[in-house]
C-alpha cells in the first residue's frame, strides 16, 4: 500500500470517531438517568436519548458525505 492511500485511510478512520461519540453518549446511563431538567414535562432521560437519535442521524450523514468522495461513488 502506498503512503498517500494510507493517509486517506487514516482520514476516513478519524471521521468514524463520530460513530463512537454517538454510541458512548447513549450507552452510558449515568449521563442521562435523571428526571430534571425535564422538557415539556418529559423527563431528561427520555428527551436526551430521543435527541441523540437525531444527532446520530446527522453525524452519520456527515460521515457519509465526508467519506463518499474517497470511495469515488455517487453523492446524491
Amino acid at each position, binding site marked *: 500500500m502506498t503512503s498517500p492511500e494510507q493517509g486517506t485511510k487514516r482520514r476516513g478512520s478519524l471521521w468514524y470517531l463520530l460513530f463512537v461519540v454517538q454510541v458512548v453518549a447513549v450507552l452510558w*446511563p449515568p449521563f442521562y438517568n435523571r428526571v430534571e431538567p425535564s422538557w415539556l414535562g418529559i423527563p431528561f432521560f427520555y428527551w436526551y436519548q430521543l435527541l441523540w*437519535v437525531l444527532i446520530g442521524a446527522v453525524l452519520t450523514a456527515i460521515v457519509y458525505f465526508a467519506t463518499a468522495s474517497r470511495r469515488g461513488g455517487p453523492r446524491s
Partner: protein
Amino acid sequence: MQSVDWVATSVFVVLFGFITWLGFAAARWRKGDLDQLHEWGLGGRRFGTLVTWFLVGGDLYTAYTFVAVPALAFGAGAVAFFAVPYTIAIYPILFLVFPRIWNVCHKHGYITAGDFVRGRFGNRWLALAITITGIVATMPYIALQLVGIQVVIAGLGISGTGFAADLPLIIAFVILAAFTFSSGLRAPASIAIVKDILIYVTAFAAVILIPIQLGGFGEIFAAVPAAKQILAVPGPHTTGAYGSYATLALGSALALFLYPHSLTGILSASSGHAIRRNAALLPGYSFMLGLLALVGFFAIAAGVGNLPEFAAGFKQFGNNFAVPALFLHSFPPWFVGVAFAAIGIGALVPSAIMSIAAANLYTRNIHREFFAPQMSGRTESQVAKWVSLIVKFGALVFILFVPTQYAIQLQLLGGIWIIQTLPAVLLGAYTRWFNDWALLVGWAVGTFAGTAMAVAAKLTPTYPVAFAGYTFPGYTAFYTLLLNLAVTALLTLVVKALRPRAAVVDATVEADYLA
C-alpha cells in the same frame, strides 16, 4: 370483551384487501424472472435508497416491536427505552460492515450468511451451524408477529370459540403465504410502503392527540410512578440496572443484523451506497419507536389497565394489550381501524421477509449443499417457495397450539443464539484470521452457555455475573458473545501454533469487499 366494532373492522378489512391486491401485483414490479432465487428471494438486488428504506424499516421495526416496546414501558417503565440506544448503536454497524458484505455477496452471488461463510471459510459444517442458527432464531420471531395480529383482531372485538376464534388469523396468514409464494421479496417491499405510511400516521396521531386529551406530558408523567420514570440507581458493588440497560442495547444491536431477515433486506439493495445512505435515514424509524415507547406511559396515565371493557384483553394478552386498549379508548372508531391495520400489516411485512430469508437459507445451505448440488436455478427457486410456505405454516401452528409465552421465551433465546454467528459473519467480513473449526467450537460453546444461563435466569434476558465480590447483571447474549470470541481466538492461536503452514481456504479476496 367488548362487542365487534364494525366501523373499525370495515376500515381494517378494506386496508387489508388493498395490500392483498398490492402483494400479488408486486410480481410485475421491476419485473424479473421469478424462477431465479435471487429474483424471488432478493428482488433482483434492484431496490434503491428509498425502497430499501421502506423495506428494511418495515423489516426491522416490526408490529411486535410497536406492541411490545410500549407494553414493556407500561409494565416495567424506563428500561423499555433501551430500544432507543439499541437503534442508535445499530447504524454505525450498518454503515461500516454491511457495504462490505453487500459487495462480496454481489460479487459471488451469495444470498445468505451461510453462502458467505461457506465461501470465506470453506467449511460446510460451519456454514451449516450458521444456517441452522438463522432458521431456528427466525421461527419464533415469525410466531411473535402473529401475536401482533392476534392482539389487534381481539381489539376489534372479534371473538369466537374453537376454530372460529382462530379464523381471522388463519385468513391473514393464507393471504400472506399466497402473495409471498407468488411475488417473493417484491411483495413485502411494496406493502412496506403502505404499512409505513399507516404506521407514521398512527404514531404521530398517538403522540400528539393523546397527550392533548390527557392534559400534556407533565400530567402524563405525574401519573407514572417515580420508580418507573428512570432506571434504579445501582447500589454498591454492582452495575445494577445501568449494566443491564447498556448491555441489552449493545447486545441487541450486535444481534440485529445477523438475523436472516435483516441480511435479506440489506442484500436486496442496489448498491453499498444505498446501504450507507440508509444508515443516516433509518433513524427516522428509531425516533418514531422512541415516541411509541412513550405511548406505554400514556396508557398508564389513561388508566386503561383498570377499565372493565379491557379486562378480558389484558387477561388474554397481558401488557401487550396496553397499546390496542389505549387506541380504542382515545381514537374514533374509523381511526382505530387505521391504527390496527397499521399493526396488522406491519406484522405481515416482516413475516414475509423472515419466511423468505429462512427459505433462502434452507435452499442454498442445506438442500443444495447436502442433497442436490446440481439443482438448476429454477428448481432452487421452487424449493425456496415451498419452504417459505412450510416455515409460515409452522409458525401458525405454533401460535395456535402453544402458549404465547413460549414464543416470547424462544425469541429471547433466539437473540442469544443468533449473536453467536457474529465472529464468522461480521468479523469474517473483515478478517480471515480465525480458524474455521475454532469458529465452530466458539459458536457451540456460546450457544450452550447462553442457553444454560438463560434457563438459570428463568428465561429472563439478563444474567447476574458475579466476579470478585461485584455483581454485573447484563444481557446474556452479550456475555456469551464475549465467551465465544475468547474461545474462538484462543483455539485459533493454538491451531496456528500447531500447524503454522496449513493452507487457508478462502474463495474471496480483499478486493471483493470494496466497491
